[in-house]
């Protein structure tokens, strides 16, 4: 449930004539649930990268609840992201040698932060996503099940911001629906600010608002509030 105020942001890459992303002004209120849509190459992942501090904007400020992450050092952005952002990616990025629960706990472990309370929450979250007590190798899970593990991992520490980049793009329709459902209910429960990049109407239609990107810019006609 963090609010965002983004102003005068542009992201340029060498070799590209136009900036990959150009946003003069964008606000998201705390707990708002936003869909980001747009054709391939329109800058959706670029937006996710700068909103989560994975990448630095060429210009502009990205203020989350008073913290301009554009001004943070790389290490400080990593820490800020760990504390505030849960990220779900199209390719799940689970680690094959680890069990489901070890995958859920991995980010906390890498920060030496996994206490018993967190371990208990990890187990209950796996229950919640329908994978409780499953101790099979991660590689033998179905793709839908993998993405559910990734959702549990993202919400483990009750982040203020949940960001998903095309979470159902590599899933079949039924699995995509389950993941959409989970994102919806889990963020609603905790009042988490939710940003989902997706083409999937089943997700987009559930959310409060839609931002449509075309060639790195917000397209006003197709952006809507409800």
């Amino acid at each position: 449930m963090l609010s965002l105020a983004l102003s005068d942001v542009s992201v340029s890459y060498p070799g590209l004539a136009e900036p990959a992303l150009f946003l003069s002004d964008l606000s998201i209120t705390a707990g708002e649930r936003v869909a980001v849509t747009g054709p391939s190459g329109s800058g959706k992942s670029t937006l996710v990268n700068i909103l989560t501090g994975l990448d630095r904007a060429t210009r502009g400020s990205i203020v989350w609840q008073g913290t301009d992450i554009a001004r943070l050092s790389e290490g400080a952005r990593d820490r800020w992201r760990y504390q505030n952002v849960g990220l779900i990616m199209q390719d799940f990025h689970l680690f094959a040698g680890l069990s489901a629960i070890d995958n859920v706990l991995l980010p906390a472990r890498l920060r030496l932060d996994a206490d018993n309370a967190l371990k208990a929450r990890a187990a209950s979250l796996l229950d919640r996503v329908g994978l409780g007590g499953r101790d099979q190798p991660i590689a033998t899970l179905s793709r839908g099940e993998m993405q559910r593990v990734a959702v549990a991992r993202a919400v483990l520490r009750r982040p203020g911001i949940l960001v998903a980049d095309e979470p159902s793009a590599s899933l079949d329709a039924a699995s995509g629906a389950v993941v959409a459902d989970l994102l919806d209910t889990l963020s609603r429960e905790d009042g988490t600010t939710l940003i989902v990049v997706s083409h999937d109407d089943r997700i987009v239609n559930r959310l409060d608002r839609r931002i449509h990107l075309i060639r790195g810019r917000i397209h006003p006609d197709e952006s809507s509030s409800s």
Partner: protein
Amino acid sequence: MMRLILADLRRLWLGAAVVLVLVALATALGMAVTLQERALRLGSARAADSFDLIVGAPGSETQLVLSTVFLQPSPLPLMKGDVLARLAADPRVAFAAPVGFGDFFGTYPIVGTSSDLATDAGHRPLAEGRLFAQTHEAVAGAGTDLRVGDIIHPMHGRPDQSGSVHKEAAYRVVGRMAPSNTPWDRAILVPIEGVWAVHGLHAGRHQEHEGEEPDSHDGDEPSRQIHQSGGWAADLPGLPAIVVKPKTIADAYRLRAAYRTDSALAVFPGEVLTNLYGTLGDARTVLALVVTGAQALVGAAIALIAIGHVSQRRRQIGALRALGAPRIAIFGIVWGEIFALVAAGITAGLGLAYLAARLISAEISKGNGVTLPVAFEGSDASRVLALVAAAGLLAAIPAALAYRQPATAALRH
């Protein structure tokens, strides 16, 4: 983090095993050379230990030591017969024992000498039986398969060439020596008078035995009493070597000086061996360079593999960052994974080197009786530490690459 490293190594076990084996072999190569070289040095020094001073005819010091200490078959020039008598009478000498080679039984060298050398003047008891007391009696070394009571026929010449058997001559084994862990364990000791008799030489005797002129030119004569400790006649046949036990260390140096003349060459075997190793020093340096080069190549290969591995996993590393992992954790994972693998390889290599050196030493012992003691030394620790440090630095290269890698890779397709 440990879990992630272990899981990763388990998953990539084949590549990990290859790296481990490479490192183990490179480590073992270097360590085995060191261990073996040291074993050779210690073993030969120990073999030379019981020979304080060796006197021979002028010629090669090295050959004199190799023939006397290691019983290496090769013809030595002979000294005049009176040297032994002079040495035996020298007040600085505890004992002077003749040494005569040339005959074999199978592959066992038959060494003609006196009771002094066989028992270190009474300090070293036999393991079994008694000492030779007659010309046709023999004492077998601990490493031979001869038993008391066996009869042996000496053969003249080197065992690998077809020598002539002295058919008529025979020695009866009357005792067995205690093991000395030197090539002498494979020797058969007989009285020098026996060797002379077999070769039909004028077996000179001390005055107390005069009148017993040898009458034949073959080994057919009856066994006779032999000379016990004490004086030797001056008109003995020529000898290839005399082992001298000086009374004191100072005497040893004086004797060596006194017997480096036109007719005699006195050497300290330890010193000759040290010089020999000095000569071999260059070869050792070259070998060490080759080994270091091989290790550096393996190191470079592993660094390349690791760098390739890291760049193949850009997205995975990006994902870890996206999930909030600090860069230092990324560094730690990559570094830890490579370092654990290389450290395990080094450990395995040390074991492998030890085993290899033991095997080689055992093989050498079987051949010539020298026991080569294989052991790690304090100085090895610094070599191992240097290897471990090199591994740590090596692992830091791909780890640093992973550390510097941008965090955005996870969302790119």
